């Protein structure tokens, strides 16, 4: 993602997908301005803030642990203690998305076909 990364020629409209080429579709030449995320240092800065943010948010569970904040039980007391484990929501979110992506990647092996797979169909 930097200023020299983009294509030498602006992309042309594709015929399929464009409903009426004259309607609304606009392609302009690049004006050469360097924008915010063209600079790799900005991307790095954002990522650094994000990782620090994740650390702080993970640490919020400490407030529950040392009883500065009281964690409200969603479930009736004692029926589902897992929700009170420190870091449960963080780790569950992380694990869920990794598992989701890994399964989806495998799914692609079974389900992926050429883009024109249904093109000869009428119904």
């Amino acid at each position: 993602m930097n200023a020299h990364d983009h294509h030498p020629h602006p992309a042309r409209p594709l015929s399929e997908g464009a409903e009426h080429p004259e309607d609304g579709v606009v392609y302009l030449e690049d004006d050469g301005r360097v924008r915010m995320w063209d600079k790799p240092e900005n991307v790095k800065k954002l990522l650094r803030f994000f990782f620090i943010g994740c650390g702080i948010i993970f640490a919020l569970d400490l407030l529950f642990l040392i009883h500065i904040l009281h964690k409200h039980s969603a479930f009736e007391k004692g029926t589902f203690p897992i929700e009170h484990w420190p870091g449960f929501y963080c780790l569950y979110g992380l694990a869920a998305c990794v598992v989701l992506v890994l399964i989806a990647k495998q799914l692609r092996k079974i389900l992926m076909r050429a883009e024109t797979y249904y093109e000869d169909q009428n119904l």
Partner: protein
Amino acid sequence: MSAIYPPLVFLVGAAITALFWGRSRTAANCAYVGTAVVALINLFAFDMPGNIGIDMMGFQFELVRADKLAMLFTILFHIAALIVSIYSLHVKDVVQKTTGLLYAASAIGAVMAGDLITLFVWWELLAVTSVFQIWARKNKRSGGAGMRYLILHILSGLLLLAGAAWHYAETGSIAFGGMDDLGVFKLEGAAAWLIFLGFGVKCAFPFVHTWLVDAYPEATPTGAVYLCCFTTKVAVYCMARGYAGTGLLITIGGAMAMFPIFFAVIENDLRKVLGYSMINQIGFMMVGIGIGSEWGINGAVAHAFNDVLFKGLLFMSMGAVLYRTGRINGSDLGGLYKTMPWTTFFCIVGAASISAFPLFCGFVSKSMIMDAVAENGNWIIWLMLLFAAAGVFHHAGIKIPYFAFFGHDSGIRTKEAPLNMLIAMGISATLCIAIGCFPSLLYQLLPLDLNEFNAYGHGGTHVITQTQLLFFSALAFVTLMLFKIYPPELRATHLDVDWVYRKVWKGTYGFVDALFNSLNDKIHGLVVVNGLTGLGRFFANAPARLLGLVVQDRRGLDARLRSGTFPIGLTAFFGMLLFALLYFL
């Protein structure tokens, strides 16, 4: 002064728009947007009678049943109609505009209907008027997708009609519950099952969900926004009215919340991703309705309300991208934030809302459903929904804005979306944030007692846990991206259940077609070509042959017969002769 029947305002508006179109585009466009404005005034400025009924053919039809649940959806559809009509103001196709207004009228008519027959009429109109938003794309793909969409929706209507007839035969009543009735039907007996399945098709239950992800991406840029506002929300309303507290819905809803997110991760067409994410959100609503407690039902309908706002907003931002670039595949897009900054901003607001970030509208309704599930003690479903909540942030919250507006720079430089689109997106975004910050705006419309629910209460537990869940889902995305494990966007078709009827059924159809048509050909050859023409020739020639027996010049007659120049006069003469003979005999 009493109010006008709300759908009527839209029907008249559609007629005026169509009438003015040929004479003055400006007047027609004023009528188009004015319709929704007048309808809103009609709704709020006058006292709506709670019930409007008419007696016809011995039936009591209840056109209006304005209790809290129905009014919530009526208000929602009025707001949606205003936003979408502003969004689609620039469209140069009068058919899309008029059918759009008729579509809004059908949705409002359906949620106000107090009996099953009135509901059925609006239900079918909902299908018929909405398909034009797909067909208006006017290409082969949209033609086929629209037809498949229509077939499933007509099927849904027929199931509803059959159920209603059965119900009438059993109970002698066509009423769809009385005022403030929820959970009208128990899932026992054929009538209740038929109606349940009829609603289920429109709710995009698993295996019949294909109409949604098949048709929405093929609609016009503005058409997809229309579609996402009305059809499924009418179905959610009907499910809440008819089957609140039906345990089966918890299981179905759990499945609906889970399975689409896997498809959404690998799908390239960004509007199809939104289609899958819509099924996922309806899954949350089905779970809430299935639980049937105050929090469950309130959470479900509140989420339906918010879903129209944030999913509409996401469809609008993707529509703007499609309108400006002619492309919608993630693999073709990227870097659009440079030239479409406002659209990018609105898309991020929609993404934050659907992901249920605190201070955005999804949060105040989704946390209510989660609490309802926990209160019910169903921890398996609770974990599934938590997984789905993380997943929806992953594919709708991050993937949509990232691949369209950031990510790999596609080199496309275009213009910002037209002003009318920006205004419509602005209204939606404002409502998303307003409801997120001041949930009482929405909570006061909810049909049941809230039991002091407060998403921001409980020492901020919801705020903290939800933020933790979302940040670490994002962390997963960032990590997988950095390590290049994340599946790239590929130009491809991914199979779904519609493969069964689009390929297997086509194959079966082809086989049956070949078998029976060849059989048909043989029989046709035997009977029609040889048999019947032989018979025909016999009857055609018989008079001449008989004649030949009495007439001397047989050769001349034969020649005339072959060349078909048998004089008409002669035929007429013999005809007369025949009649004369018959008369005398």
